[in-house]
Each structure stands twice: as C-alpha cells, then as structure tokens.
C-alpha cells in the first residue's frame, strides 16, 4: 500500500474515533468541535475540485457556503414563524426537513456558481482570483443590506432541522449524519478524479492547449467543475448553519474563502484527503491556541507562512512524500 493510502485511512478514521472517544467521556463540546471540522472539510473538499484538480484559485467560495447557509436559514425561518416565503402567484412554504433544505442549498449554490463561473472563467490567473473575491464580497454586502432576513445581525433558528429517523439535536447523531455525507462526497470525488471528466480537467490545468487540440473544451470542463465545487461547498454551508442554528453575513466573508484555501494547502493541494487533514489541523490549532492567547491567529499566520515558504505539499505531502496519485 502506498504511504498516502495508509495516511488517508488513518485520517479518515481519526474523526469517528475521536468523536467516539468524546462520546464515551461525555465531552459533547468536543463532538461539536469535530463536527465543525468535518463540515469545514466538506466545504474545502468541494473547493479542492476546482482548486486542486482544475487549478482554479477561487477566493470567493464563501459565496456558496453562505448561500447554502441562507438556504437553510430562510427555509427554517419561515417554517418556525409559520409564514409563507411567497404567496403572490403560488404559495411557497418554509420547511424544517434537512433533505429538502440540502437540495435547495445545492441547487441555489450551483446556480450561483454557474453565473459566477461563466463570468470569471472568461479570464484566468490573477484576474480569476480577484474576480471571484469580488463576487464573494458582493454577496456579503448584499446580505448585510437586505433587512428581510436579519441583515447584519443574521438569523437564529431555534431548533435544529429534522432528518427522518434521527434525533438531530443529539450531537453524536448529528456528527454521524455529517460524517456520512463527507464520506459519500469523498468517495464520489475520488471516483470523479479518476473518471474521464477528472482526467480531462486535470489535463486542462496542466496544458489547456493540448486539451483543446484533442477536442475537449477547457472552458466547459472548468465550468462544470466550478459548479459541482460550488454546490458541495453550498451543502457544507447548510450543514454549518444547522450546526450553529444561526446564519449571518460572516459566512459570506472573504476570510472564510481564505480559510477554505488554507485548509486545502495545510493538508496538501490536489490530494483527496488534503482538505480533511487541513480542516482537522486548523480546528485543532484553533482549539489549542485560542485559550493561550487572544491573538492566536498570529501563530496560525506564522505557521501558514512557513508551510507556504518551506513545506510545500502540506501535511500529507510532508508525511507521505511528493508523489501524487493523479498527476
């Protein structure tokens, strides 16, 4: 077995094992913390399809994270206040059902990704970074200035939404749900990377002209990747909002987009489990450092700087060597 495969298995098992231990010890706070790491990992796994495989450095993925969050917030808000979302032409009710909320979150963030992607993929490189960042900020300001759903204060949801057969308010059951989704998406992403689509996308990153010469359109490949990537991050946003039972414009903030990239790079760019490792490492650092100092982000910044300058390949790269499966 390759060292990376062993490492991936360990990483994959780390979350349920840690959550199980926390459950036995009765530390519900730790379970919530691990759930948070799993949701961040899911968001970054989504981004990694565009960034790692497609080479598209999107600094605006918080837009999709926030759209997913607000999809949950708006639907649950209308359900808990018993007001219809719309009653002009036909009546549209809110809902507390997680599967419905997820579908809405996935569909709306995919739609936003389609619009943003169609515009920003006309450019490349540094333009692409700036444009995605700017569109992300547009959603942030829109969320602040739109008063119907709390504006700057955000929206609180009193009770976590329902999933058939589960008590979602129980931290362990909610973690299991999130982990199942993360596992499913990781499995799918692993298959996607080896499928013709993933290979073509990866080829377009390495040499777009050659891909075009063999008759594949890099623009279409990238757009599809960007849409799937945005949809996965949107789903993570809906879960994150459900974890906190709160949505606010900070989910749209550019720092959020930056952190997603940080997860990927801390773990290792273009590696399937890179975002998982990075998100776990980040949440762990946050947990360990924030009691030490109010200014713990200084340490995170310094570590990040050192990783970028000296430890290229991230955590997995340093531990498993530089060979990457799909390059």
């Amino acid at each position, binding site marked *: 077995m390759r060292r990376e495969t062993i490492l991936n298995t360990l990483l994959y098992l780390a979350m349920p094992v840690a959550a199980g231990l926390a459950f036995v010890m009765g530390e519900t706070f730790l379970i919530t913390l691990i759930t948070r790491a799993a949701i961040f990992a899911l968001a970054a796994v989504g981004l990694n399809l565009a*960034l790692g495989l497609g080479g598209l*450095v999107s*600094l605006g993925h918080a837009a999709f994270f926030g759209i997913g969050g607000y999809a949950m917030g708006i639907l649950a808000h209308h359900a808990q206040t018993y007001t219809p979302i719309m009653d002009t032409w036909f009546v549209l009710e809110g809902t507390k059902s997680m599967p419905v909320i997820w579908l809405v979150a996935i569909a709306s963030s995919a739609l936003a990704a389609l619009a943003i992607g169609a*515009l*920003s993929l*006309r*450019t490349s*490189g*540094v*333009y692409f*970074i*700036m*444009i995605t*960042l*700017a*569109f992300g*900020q*547009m959603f942030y*300001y*829109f969320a*602040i*200035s*739109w*008063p*119907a759903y709390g504006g700057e204060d955000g929206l609180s949801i009193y009770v976590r939404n329902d999933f058939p057969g589960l008590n979602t308010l129980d931290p362990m059951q909610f973690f299991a749900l999130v982990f199942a989704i993360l596992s499913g998406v990781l499995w799918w992403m692993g298959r996607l990377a080896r499928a013709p689509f993933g290979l073509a996308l990866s080829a377009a990153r390495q040499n777009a002209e050659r891909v075009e010469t063999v008759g594949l359109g890099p623009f279409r490949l990238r757009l599809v990747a960007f849409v799937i990537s945005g949809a996965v991050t949107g789903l993570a946003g809906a879960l994150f909002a459900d974890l906190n039972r709160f949505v606010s414009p900070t989910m749209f903030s*550019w720092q959020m987009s*930056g952190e997603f*990239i*940080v997860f990927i*790079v801390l773990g290792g*760019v273009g590696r399937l489990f890179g975002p998982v490792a990075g998100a776990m490492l980040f949440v762990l650092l946050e947990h360990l450092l924030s009691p030490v100092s*109010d*200014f*713990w*982000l*200084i340490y*995170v*910044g*310094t570590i*990040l*700087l050192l990783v*970028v*300058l000296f430890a*290229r390949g991230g955590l997995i790269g340093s531990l498993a060597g530089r060979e990457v499966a799909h390059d």
Partner: protein
Amino acid sequence: MTPILLIEQVLNGLQSGITLFLMAAGLTLIFGVMGLINLAHGSLYMIGAFAAAAVAGWTGSFVLALGAALAAAAAAGMIIEMVVIRRLYDRDHLDQVLATFALILIFSEGTRWLFGSFPLYLDVPAALSGPVTLPGGILYPSYRLLIIVIGLLIAVGLFQLIARTRIGIQIRAGESDREMIAALGVDISRLYTIVFALGAALAGLAGALVGAIQSVQVGMGEPVLILAFVVIVIGGIGSIKGALVGALLVGLTDTLGGVLLPLLFGLFMDPSSATTIGSALASMSIYILMALVLLFRPTGLYGRA
C-alpha cells in the same frame, strides 16, 4: 434631488475614487512589474492609518501624521518585500495568495495586540474642518476637497515618474522583459524593493487620508483592497491609466448608486421598500459594473490582451 446635492455627491464619488486610485496604483504596479498578487496591500493601508493616528496623538500635527503614514507603510513594505515577498516571485499565484493571506493575519492580529480592538480616531486638522465655497455657491468640506487635490497631484506625479524618470524607464522595461533588463545591468531586486515600497507608501497615505474621515481600526484595509481589485479588473492589470479611470468609475458608481437607486425605485414604489431594494441593489452596483466590463472586455478597459 437638487443639482447642488447631486454635485456634492459627484465630488464625494471623486474623493472615494481618488483614494481607491492610491490603493489600486500600487497593486497594479506590483502586479505589472513583479507579477505578484498582494493581498496584504490592505494591511499596508491599515498600517498607514494607525501610524498617522498614533503620531497625530503624540504631536497634534496632521502633516507629521501624514509623513509618518508614508514612512511607516514604506518601511513595512520594504521589510516584507525583503523577508517574504521576494521568495514568492517565481511561485504560482496560489502560493502568493496564501503567503500574503498569512501576512494579513499576522499584521491584523499584531495591530490588535499593539493598539487594542477599539477604533482610534484621527481628527481632521482644524484649518480644514470647515466647508469651502465652490463656484455656484456649493458648500463642500475642505478636507475632502484636499484629498481630491492630493490624489490628483499624486496621479500626475506618478504618470511623470513612469514616463520621464530613469526609474520609470526601468519599471516599464521590467514590465515587458524582466530577464533583459537584468542582463543590461539593472539591479532587479533593488528595483523590485523600490516598486513595492512605493506601492506600500501610496497605500499608507490613502489609509491615513481616509482614516481622518472614518475610524481607524483593524480590518479597515481589506474592504478597500477588494474594491481596488474591482478597480484593477475594470481598468486592466498593470495599467496606471486603467487604475485611474477604473477607480473614478467605481467611486462614482458606488456613491451615486447609493443615492440615486433608492430615488429611482421611489418613482414607482412605496418609499420604504424603495429604500430597501434601492440600497441592496446599490451595494451590488460596482460588481455589476465589473461583470459588464468582463462581458465585453475580459482584459479590462486598458488591459493588454
């Protein structure tokens, strides 16, 4: 809306545009010459504002405060160029984004640690705190007018610097062919440090000038940084002229959109929902402008294809 009010808003738009230009000019120069995307440019803006607020607090002199802002931002720029940025020139954009994102974290938290979380206030000097009467009987705050004048002077100076001086020739040569000018004996790493420090000083000056109108606080730089990115996307990367035109367009669209859109919707809606929809749309107006430019000119108004 009266014409006087409209002219006032146009001047406000010019003022915010010209401060954006100070940010965007540095960013676009740094990108044009070194090919580097610098997210930490907003931190340099913040450093300028904090240096100005601190020095104004000690000495009470606004001129000294502006000098301190220029010096502190240029020094910070020079240091990060020599310690960090220099290692990033031949890296890909992802590494540049991450390293400069890390710098933002370090600078923001460092400033919070030094100055605390509460905003500082930088007062407009007494001589400039009153309004000035413009032709046509328009009263306009003299400090804001000063910002416009300073910004325009710097724009003219920058164009002259790039068109006429030796360093300007080196900058332009560096933009078109890096290896060649190194081969011709220009000390390229010194040139890079100078360009970076120049961009940093402009950002610091912008921070100090705006700091006297708004409050001086941690995180003040990043919203301006993102606006400056919009400016560069509109104007075209590497073009100072594009930065100027883009900055004025963005400043005017943002300011006038905030005033005119609610009025426009007020024509066919009740006032309260007109204000809501108008201001929500106004918050998106510059991004819509950016999207339109992208549709027709993906490389920006003055960008090279």
